[in-house]
């Protein structure tokens, strides 16, 4: 029964796509579309087939981009979370860095791109650097506000139980902050992907971003749209992974998660 309902809801989603893509294709087939601007879906599909299956040229670019994004994300998150933890524990440190955090928030990270390229060159490191730069802030601010959320009665409870500061942190403060921290991480990973791709524009030899730019500048629209679709796939992969981790680690945010884990714990006994 579950399989059938799964297929049905998948079809419902697919219907919307089928309608739009179908109309698009028909419109192009009857000559109503300037194919220089907007190639028909079948052409894009063929290009995708070529890139993924026939020549398989896309895989290298795909993985290079993913890797640059992942490293940038990891570095950005590490810095962001560490600074946030330090700021949560030391009001003095928080005061010192507060204005700089605000300034950082207001600067468009993208604007720094030329400088980053000047400093890091045309290779992988400049992509990683931009990804780190643009994705570091959400984990920072979310971890900080998550940790600063104080529940007076929880504090009183832990005090009467004779808990140490460290116990309070690991058993209450940190788990309590997890929902917000993960929201920041989800935002960061999408932003990191964005940063990586933008950094590739005009300064890379490999990666999905530069691939798309090359196609576009040669006016090979099918190619550039196919690259765009590839980026969508990457985005969806990343998004799904983030959602999955979120739902499994911060399971108590919704009822389904609670029921699932409750049953697991009961089995363990």
């Amino acid at each position, binding site marked *: 029964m579950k399989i059938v309902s799964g297929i049905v809801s998948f079809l419902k989603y697919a219907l919307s*796509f089928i*309608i739009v893509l179908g109309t698009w294709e028909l419109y192009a087939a009857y000559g109503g579309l300037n194919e220089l601007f907007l190639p028909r879906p079948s052409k894009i599909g063929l290009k995708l087939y070529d890139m993924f299956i026939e020549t398989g040229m896309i895989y290298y670019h795909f993985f290079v981009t993913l890797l640059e994004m992942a490293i940038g994300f990891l570095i950005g998150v590490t810095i962001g979370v560490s600074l946030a933890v330090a700021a949560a524990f030391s009001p003095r440190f928080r005061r010192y860095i507060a204005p700089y955090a*605000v300034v950082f928030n207001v600067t468009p990270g993208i*604007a720094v791109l030329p400088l980053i390229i000047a400093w890091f060159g045309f290779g992988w490191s400049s992509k990683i650097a931009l990804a780190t730069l*643009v994705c570091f802030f959400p984990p920072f601010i979310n971890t900080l506000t998550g940790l600063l959320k104080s529940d007076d009665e929880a504090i009183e409870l832990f005090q009467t139980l004779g808990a140490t500061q460290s116990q309070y942190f690991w058993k209450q403060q940190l788990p309590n902050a997890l929902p917000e921290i993960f929201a920041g991480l989800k935002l960061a990973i999408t932003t990191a992907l964005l940063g990586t*791709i933008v950094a590739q524009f005009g300064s890379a030899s490999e990666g999905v971003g530069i691939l798309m730019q090359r196609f576009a500048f040669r006016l090979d629209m099918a190619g550039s749209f196919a690259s765009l679709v590839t980026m969508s796939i990457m985005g969806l992969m990343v998004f799904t992974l983030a959602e999955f981790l979120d739902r499994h680690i911060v399971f108590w945010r919704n009822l389904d998660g609670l029921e699932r884990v409750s049953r697991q714990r009961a089995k363990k006994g």
Partner: protein
Amino acid sequence: MSYATTEQTKKLNLTKTLPFHLLIFALLMLLWEMINRLGIADDLVAPRPTDIVMAMADIFFIDQTVWHHLASTFAKALLGAFIGTLIGMGLAITAVLNETFRKYIKPWIILMEATPRIAVGPIFVALLGFGMSSAVALAALVAFFGPFVNTYQGLMDVDHEEEELFRSLGASKFQTFRKLRLPTAMPLISAGWKLAAASAFSGALVAEFIQASEGMGVLISQYVTMLTMHYAFAALLSVTLFGYILFKIMEYVDYRIIFWRDDQLMYSISEKKRNKMRAPA
């Protein structure tokens, strides 16, 4: 610009210790200056603060190059934000009012959320050229998502009991929309505007980096290419400065529209309305 909310940045608690911060800042600048003069870092990575200040004076007052480019980037961003917001809000309102539309648009929204929309940049530049239109188009594309999601969520997230109240008073769907849903949604909607403004800037800048004739993105690239890093820093600071001013203006507008969020303002407006009633018209 990133996505932190005002409440979150307020936790950083800035205002009280201004002289203290100025002192720390001055010390940091001194340290930076010394690092450069002592040769520990070169002009490429860490141009002297004094040079940067001179560059700023130059581009703003002497040469006055920057105004032109600032205007260009801001125009692209604001226009893009405006268009993006209109489209985003329009789609959101339609989705709220029409259930079929909502169902059909949902998969596309998920797709759009996962795709880095800014990546469409090269396509727009290739098709629309180096001028304003590609930057505005990209800015609009990037900016539309924030207002869409926020407007949709804000309008949908209506208090059940308040809705029942309106129904019991015999209000029409439109009246409920105007007098209940819209005001309730305002905080989220205006947060969406801020998101749009922030994203639009990124969009405009990226379009400029890819290929453009003018704008701050172009200016910064040029300065970097010429290796006059102090000018590049100066240009970057200008963008930040004006972006900050814009941010503050939007915050103020936000503050005045959603007056019931702040107690003081709420009381003063309440007082004003009371006085208007008392005074014989």
